[in-house]
């Protein structure tokens, strides 16, 4: 197993601690920079421990640096003594805490972290010897074909070769070490120097090692504790402490991101940033483009201009004439869409880091991002579209590929084979974003309020890490969560009065249509208002459903829809309710028994049933919340049974109401929320829809 060496680099009375898996490479690197000497502090197999020690040692060295006036030899001895003592003490403390915390689960048999503090300079780490041997073996094979030359130089060449290969191929990723070996299939001759190549990059500050589970001692007045943090998903609560045979000592792994490979204390996470720079730096670009141009762009984009036609027109807008125009889109923007799209486009070159497009359901959100994508691509950047679900990735990829025909579009999800490829446009599920490191210049997050993002800190962490420094985030949503609204929507102010004091407060009821960091698209593309849901309170709703007693509002709505030949969605809170509702409906509509069906997430025939519903084979579909997004049925009505259930929150109900009236030929429809008890979510949803309609009618 690989051992890591902690050493101190000292030059002109300044010292710093470093970590390496291959000490040889570091020796060579620092030898190139004259005057620096290396002193080994110790070795350990546990990466988490050794990184914690490095921090500790660096702290100690900072203190020593200030003590001048000692002769050179004494200073050095004192420094090293201090460093070793600090390392030893810290290891002891960590072990004491670890044993205390695992004593109960381990039935008295506990393991601990091991750190060999080096007492003499002579002994080299096992890893270095191994490396030397493997290099020699490799070189011998090489030397046979080539003329004999300096062995040292050849080693250096091999390491450099590896480093350049890694830098060009494996960029913009945060991967476990085993995952990087996927690239070795392309370059099997580099296997020997693979780790050394990484270390070379780290020394050149082009890459970064990290333990995939970080360790630190959390100090407090009451008691000190060990704190493990997963470097990949940044969670702290989901770490399990175990004994590990890989490193032969105490270890901890993260079970939150287990499906993407095991993050352990002894497994390094390799982070290699994307070196791609934008052709014009984002901020420098602003002054180069005169305001007048921007204005003309805005005016030209206003109705009924199309982007495609604009690109062909001559004039100030033709500044990209010499560049490639990637966007080949023939569609039209409505006036409102055009202005929002233009705002998103200008956001890309502005200074603000994030932007929210708040567009109601059925407003045509996907098209709005095309201009922004075009802009960043022309600047030479990479774009990522992150969506919560695999279905959406698969649906979106061909659409984007059609619009940007010159660029290959990667669709990345758990089971895709393209995970390890590189492209400038990437459409990814949110979990796959965890594997990226400073890779994209613009990340577009679709459906921010949907399941995986909502209330999950891990995915925000992933998005933040995938952006290059100064990168941009574009949020798309029909129902943005409150914290995002507060962050990005600039609400108006109001003055309140309490007693004789006047106070400025944020007025959440005044919703501006657009600002620096957000834009609202309150109407659908066909311009008709959103159907406003009705709430009906039915006492003993569950009982009536189970006993198949008539529920007049439900039956009326169904009868009306059947008469007009419209389809009906019925949303229920839980899977167990589906058979109940099915029997209820089949009893009350005996003529349509074959055309009533139920579907839920675990249903093996799910896709088939949804497809059949789209083709009007079924008239009524009873479903859980899985169909609340992304389904478009032209002539349909919607019923939510037991809308007071916790699973139907405001965002979910707005999305459900948004299923109705999406096509231009039947822009109206009925949405009915049946509640058994008093509930706030339906009321809030209705209020939000009404508010949007009001904004849309302005």
């Amino acid at each position, binding site marked *: 197993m690989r051992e890591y060496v902690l050493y101190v680099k000292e030059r002109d009375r300044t010292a710093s601690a470093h970590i390496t898996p291959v000490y040889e490479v570091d020796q060579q690197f620092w030898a190139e920079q004259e005057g620096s000497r290396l002193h080994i502090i110790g070795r350990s197999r546990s990466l988490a421990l050794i990184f914690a020690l490095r921090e500790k040692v660096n702290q100690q060295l900072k203190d020593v640096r200030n003590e001048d006036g000692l002769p050179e030899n004494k200073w050095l001895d004192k420094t090293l003594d201090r460093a070793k003592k600090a390392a030893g003490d810290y290891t002891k403390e960590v072990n004491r805490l670890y044993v205390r915390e695992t004593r109960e689960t381990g*039935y008295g048999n506990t393991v601990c972290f091991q750190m060999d503090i080096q007492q003499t300079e002579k002994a080299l780490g096992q890893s270095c010897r191994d490396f030397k041997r493997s290099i020699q073996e490799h070189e011998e094979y090489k030397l046979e074909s080539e003329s004999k030359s300096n062995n040292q130089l050849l080693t250096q060449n091999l390491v450099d070769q590896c480093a350049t290969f890694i830098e060009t191929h494996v960029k913009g990723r945060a991967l476990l070490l085993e995952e990087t070996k996927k690239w070795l299939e392309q370059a099997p001759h580099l296997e020997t120097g693979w780790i050394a190549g990484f270390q070379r990059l780290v020394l050149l500050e082009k890459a970064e090692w990290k333990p995939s589970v970080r360790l630190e001692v959390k100090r407090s007045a009451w008691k000190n504790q060990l704190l493990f943090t997963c470097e990949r998903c940044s969670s702290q609560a989901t770490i*399990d402490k*175990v004994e590990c045979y890989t490193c032969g000592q105490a270890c901890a792994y993260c*079970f939150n991101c*287990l499906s993407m490979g*095991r993050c352990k204390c002894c497994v390094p996470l390799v982070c290699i940033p994307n070196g791609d720079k934008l052709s014009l730096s984002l901020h420098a670009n602003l002054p180069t483009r005169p305001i007048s141009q921007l204005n003309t762009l805005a005016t030209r984009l206003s109705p009924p201009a199309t982007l495609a036609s604009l690109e062909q027109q001559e004039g100030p807008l033709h500044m990209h004439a010499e560049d490639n125009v990637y966007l080949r889109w023939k569609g039209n923007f409505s006036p409102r869409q055009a202005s929002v799209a233009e705002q998103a486009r200008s956001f890309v070159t502005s200074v603000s880091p994030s932007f929210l497009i708040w567009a109601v359901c059925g407003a045509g959100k996907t098209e709005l991002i095309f201009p922004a994508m075009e802009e960043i691509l022309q600047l030479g950047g990479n774009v990522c579209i992150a969506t919560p679900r695999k279905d959406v990735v698969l649906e979106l990829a061909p659409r984007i590929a059609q619009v940007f025909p010159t660029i290959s579009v990667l669709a990345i999800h758990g089971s895709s084979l393209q995970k390890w490829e590189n492209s400038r446009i990437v459409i990814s599920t949110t979990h796959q974003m965890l594997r990226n490191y400073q890779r994209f210049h613009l990340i577009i997050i679709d459906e921010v309020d949907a399941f995986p993002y909502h209330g999950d800190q891990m995915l925000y962490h992933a998005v933040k890490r995938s952006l290059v420094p100064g990168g941009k985030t574009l949020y798309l949503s029909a129902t943005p969560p409150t914290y995002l609204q507060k962050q990005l929507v600039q609400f108006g102010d109001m003055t309140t009065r309490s007693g004789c004091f006047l106070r400025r407060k944020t007025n959440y009821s005044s919703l501006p249509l657009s600002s620096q960091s957000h834009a609202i698209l309150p109407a659908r593309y066909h311009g008709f208002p959103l159907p406003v849901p009705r709430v009906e309170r039915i006492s003993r709703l569950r009982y009536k459903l189970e006993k198949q007693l008539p529920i007049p509002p439900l039956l009326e709505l169904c009868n009306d829809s059947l008469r007009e030949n419209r389809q009906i969605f019925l949303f229920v809170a839980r899977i167990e309710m589906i058979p109940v509702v099915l029997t209820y409906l089949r009893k009350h509509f005996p003529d349509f028994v074959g055309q009533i069906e139920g579907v839920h997430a675990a249903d093996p025939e799910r896709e088939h049933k949804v497809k059949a519903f789209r083709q009007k084979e079924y008239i009524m579909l009873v479903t859980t919340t899985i169909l609340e997004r992304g389904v478009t049925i032209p002539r349909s009505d919607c019923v939510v049974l037991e809308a007071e259930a916790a699973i139907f929150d405001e965002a979910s109900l707005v999305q459900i109401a948004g299923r109705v009236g999406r096509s231009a030929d039947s822009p109206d429809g009925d949405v009915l929320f049946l509640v058994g008890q008093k509930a706030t979510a339906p009321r809030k949803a209705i209020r939000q829809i009404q508010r949007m309609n009001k904004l849309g009618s302005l």
Partner: protein
Amino acid sequence: MRSGRKTELLVDRLPTYFTSDQYPVCYQLFQSMELCETCIDKLPIISLFSCVQCGRDERVGGTSHCRDCVKREQQVERTTTIHNRSVLRYEEWTKELISQWKYRGDERLTKLCSTLLQIGFIRYYSNERFDCISYVPMHAGRLQERGFNQAEVLAQALSIKLKVPCRPLLERTKETTKQSKQKGRTNRFFSMQDAFQLRVEASQDFSVPRNTWWMRPFTKTRRGMRILLIDDIYTTGATLQACADVLLSSELWGDHEVRSMTLAR
């Protein structure tokens, strides 16, 4: 789901598998496991009509043996077969559990698996007394790759619960291809030949009286050793048979008896 559904299911299912003196303990253990109602409903516990020899949940009509054991008896070549018992049938549910635990490395499931094994012990071996628990070893390379030996973890947990010492008696000398990737019964038996050997320290292991104060000390009896071998899956029995052969052929402690228990069969 209604409250008490889990209890309802347990009360419904368990009496078919356990005798009246096993039932209360096993009921408590099932209640303590972190399983949902759906899982308890699906739990493929091996029924009463299982093979007497290998513990498979199947009997050829009229006999008390499964198809494999009957066939093996007809072949006559290999007369000794290991006496095995398992807890669960190797079905979809068990496969999922084991792949999550073993291959994905979700070690939180260790507790669940060891409790299941304990239930199996109570069910099959509660009347027997074992002197030592041992497990099927893993090759050092594989062990380093995976990070833990699932059989060892099970054996350790069982040893703590039964207060019987757990000793690593065997070691693996040959790195065989994964059993789950090999095809054919004879192939598997063939590849397992000479794959194990007795550890050099094995004899010393027994001279160590006990590793913790509550562990029952090892006593050498006249009848020889009774060893319980633990593994996670029994498919053809090749691995366990090879281990048992090594243990039986060693003349360290007189004639012993080797039984085995696995999580899935």
